[in-house]
């Protein structure tokens, strides 16, 4: 690669715009540009516009707001440009210059929503599902009435995990670094970053991740953690994101230093901590966390490669055909599709990779009124592929992808791969016990 990579470009991501040769590959791959004219494409909104943003009074163009932040452009660029990062920084500048809109502030502070939502659950869920409330939210806040917020659980995962472990609540803050390893010395130690979704909405996912890891001999702790900051970054709240990042780096850093691997069940949280902390936010100490950070499926596959993954999966009664959708942010991790390989280890499971670019949700993007249709138009290709495959079940590593899939194709269920792995282990245990209860269905688990 003949691009000039000097210390300056490494320090300032905006300077990667100089490396763009206008090949338009990013525009060809951009899921948004292909369905709407409101976003001119990553090249135009990114490196092209960046030249105007170097002016002392930069041109503020709101079109960057239509970037879905999938990071596909970063991935496909043959020249090392990060158009998505340029857009994100431009959006933050826009917000800084023109002020934040309440809707985006709220969606950015998704964790606050989670905290309030679970405190008032199940009332929150009833309210948020009410058609009138939705209509008002669309009118007043600009949150699409077509969308339903994921249901909030009454207890958080952190509390349930602490309660399960010690029979008592262990502060809201999570685990501290144990003074002495509880397991054998050679056991892998995992600090699990559950993320807001597993913590406030899908507790079963959090529990499944812990169960699968522990089943394979890992010692699992849940460090004190706050929202990774991705919704804040995506909504231009860089200062707040930086604050969250600093908290997490400090907290996770202690575990990393004590030899813990950091494992994420949300691809997007993982990507934020692994890459954005360093590249976008320039946070100190981020590289130490990044060096030990893994997506859960990536981690389990690593155990498998080391011959440490328990392969005694028990197949279900009938062969399970399922489709797999790879989230954009998983692709951005650059680790392949580890979940597909893992699921294929379960006897009787037949996995089809749907091979589509983007589901269209983009985290909070698809919840915004003016972007709802764009979001659904992007997802159309994926929805059709799912319908054509005729499967009842879609596996995907990202929570908002799963929300979008179930929204676009209501007749299918979407699950995290870890849920399916836990099922297979549980079936094996049940059979081992001979008199064990029949395997729970994932959907029941999920609805708890």
């Amino acid at each position, binding site marked *: 690669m003949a691009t000039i990579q*000097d210390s300056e*470009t490494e320090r300032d991501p905006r300077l990667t715009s*100089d490396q763009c*040769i206008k090949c338009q590959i990013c525009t060809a791959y951009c899921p948004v540009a292909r369905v709407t*004219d409101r976003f001119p494409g990553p090249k135009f909104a990114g490196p*092209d516009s960046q*030249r105007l943003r170097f002016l002392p009074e930069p041109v503020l163009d709101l079109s960057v707001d239509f970037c879905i932040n999938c990071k596909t452009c970063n991935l496909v660029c043959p020249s090392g440009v990060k158009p998505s990062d340029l857009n994100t920084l431009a959006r933050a500048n826009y917000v800084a210059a023109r002020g934040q809109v309440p809707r985006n502030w709220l969606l950015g502070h998704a964790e606050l929503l989670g905290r309030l939502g679970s405190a008032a659950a199940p009332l929150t869920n009833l309210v948020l599902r009410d058609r009138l409330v939705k209509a008002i939210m669309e009118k007043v806040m600009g949150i699409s009435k077509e969308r339903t917020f994921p249901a909030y659980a009454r207890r958080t995962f952190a509390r349930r995990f602490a309660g399960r472990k010690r029979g008592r609540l262990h502060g809201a803050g999570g685990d501290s670094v144990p003074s002495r390893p509880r397991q054998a010395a050679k056991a892998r130690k995992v600090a699990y970053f559950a993320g807001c979704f597993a913590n406030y909405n899908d507790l079963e996912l959090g529990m499944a991740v812990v169960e699968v890891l522990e089943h394979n001999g890992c010692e699992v702790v849940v460090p004190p953690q706050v929202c990774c900051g991705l919704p804040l970054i995506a909504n231009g709240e860089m200062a707040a994101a930086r604050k969250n990042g600093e908290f997490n780096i400090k907290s996770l850093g202690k575990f990393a230093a004590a030899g813990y691997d950091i494992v994420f069940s949300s691809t997007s949280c993982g990507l934020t901590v692994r890459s954005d902390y360093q590249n976008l936010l320039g946070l100190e100490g981020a590289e130490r966390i990044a060096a030990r950070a893994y997506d859960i499926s990536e981690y389990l596959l690593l155990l498998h490669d080391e011959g440490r993954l328990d392969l005694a999966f028990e197949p279900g009664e009938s062969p399970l055909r399922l489709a797999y959708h790879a989230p954009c942010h998983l692709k951005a991790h650059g680790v392949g599709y580890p979940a597909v390989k893992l699921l294929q280890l379960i006897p009787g499971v037949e996995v089809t990779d749907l091979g589509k670019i983007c589901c269209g949700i983009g985290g909070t993007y698809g919840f915004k009124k003016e972007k709802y249709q764009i979001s659904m138009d992007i997802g159309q290709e994926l929805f059709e592929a799912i319908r054509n495959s005729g499967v009842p079940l879609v596996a995907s590593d990202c929570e908002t992808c799963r929300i979008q899939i179930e929204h676009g194709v209501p007749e299918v269920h979407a699950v995290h791969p870890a849920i399916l792995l836990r099922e297979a282990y549980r079936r094996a245990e049940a059979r081992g016990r001979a008199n064990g209860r029949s395997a729970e269905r994932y959907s029941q688990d999920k609805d708890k």
Partner: protein
Amino acid sequence: MEKGEWVVVIGGGSTGTGIARDLAMRGVPTTLIEMEDLASGTTGRCHGLLHSGGRYVVADPATARECIEENRILRRIAPHCIEDTGGLFVAVTDEDLEYLPRFLSACRKTGLPAEEISVREALAIEPHLSPRIQAAVRVPDASVDPFRLAVANAAGAREYGAEILRHTKVVGLVKEGDAVAGVRVAEEGDGRERVIRSRFVVNAAGAWSGKIAGMAGISLELVLSKGTLLIFNHRIVNTVINHCHPAGDGDIIVPAGTVSILGTTSVTVPEPDHDRYGIEDEEIPYLLEKGSAMAPFVRSARVIRAFAGVRPLFEGDEEGQGHYGHGEHREHDDRAVSRNYVIIDHETVHGIKNFLTVTGGKLTTYRRMAEAAADVACARLGVAAACRTAGEGLPGVASTEKPRNTFTICECEFVPRAEIQDRLEKLNAADSPQPPQALLADLRRRTRIGMGTCQGAYCGYRTAGVAHETASFSAREANWMLAKFLQERWKGTRPVLWGDQAREAALVAHIYRGIFNIDEKVQ
């Protein structure tokens, strides 16, 4: 023989368009003749620096005084052509520090507002400045768009009734006895010659003024000094950066629109035509090295193009040949060795009537040169009207509405289709026919198409398509203009083919040769 005008002005650069407007405003019927396009010569091939005068203040205070005076006037009359970037003189070496007090005291004496600021402040304003700079002085330099300035002057001249003939070349002077009585011109397209009679001819052909004077049998002592400049892909600085030392090579960086320009070199060349001289390989690293003393980042920043212009420097015998500028002492008594402009009334100096040459000078002082030349011409014509160009603003050029939904033709420079079409109509409706092969270059000077990162990769074929679709250009002509345009873009890219720009050029070559099958054989 066609209509007799009072004055023919030769040359469509800043000086010629300035003179045409000045004369037209005084009520003198004027025809301007330009062999290529407005600002296609030296005017469009410079830094685009609106001098504060700081560059000349020590060696040539009179010129510096003119610069600061004109700087103030142009900010008033042409705000749409000027970006008030401000300027910094930065001292890097110990020698620069020794020069600094002389510089500051000369600024004070000349009345040039110069304010020393701390190095820390300078680095905060311009983070790419060398951390090794030792002192910084703020001056009222600015960045001026020379294309826009010339086009605005021509438009202003036209408003007052002047005729602007582009792509029309003067091939001879009409002489009657010892007087010049008009010009013989050839149109660029078919080469058809005709005579334009006039009572007076002003030679404002800049680097070509020696050739024009030669048509009257006059030999002018012009030194043609080529200056090479580099264009960076983005604004590596937002302030004009000058190396605080006696004027030298590669010591100015000017932010200009989306880009920054570093220059220049100074090499004597025998010919003014820009397709006759080249850019030497060694000039490029030389400029980068010189520039990196002020801002080390220039070594790694992407260079998208090199270009060169030829300054006409008058080194004739001052006593015999004419008189220099400098306002009040405009007569023969100014003996200072100056790089200022010169006005030669050929009746006084060579005994040839109705003929005047104005040459030398610089973009910043174009209006004053125009005023001085028009004064002499008016005196010879018996016109008493005084110059009004210092008080009346230039017509706006950016009148094109940019509707949001129009297709963007040039994505690097954000040129929408509506703007291209608007400009295209104006060029076609101009006084002289628009040669198809020059269309894209002429549009480039007016809209900035092809001047960005990709140097015409996408806007080239798109604009040719628009020309074919909306104007009367045939497919063959569209191909022709495209090939010409690409060839001209390539000329400036070739000297800077390394790193990202080499990759860019490879892509452009693949698009045009691989997909469109256009290469140099198309003509």
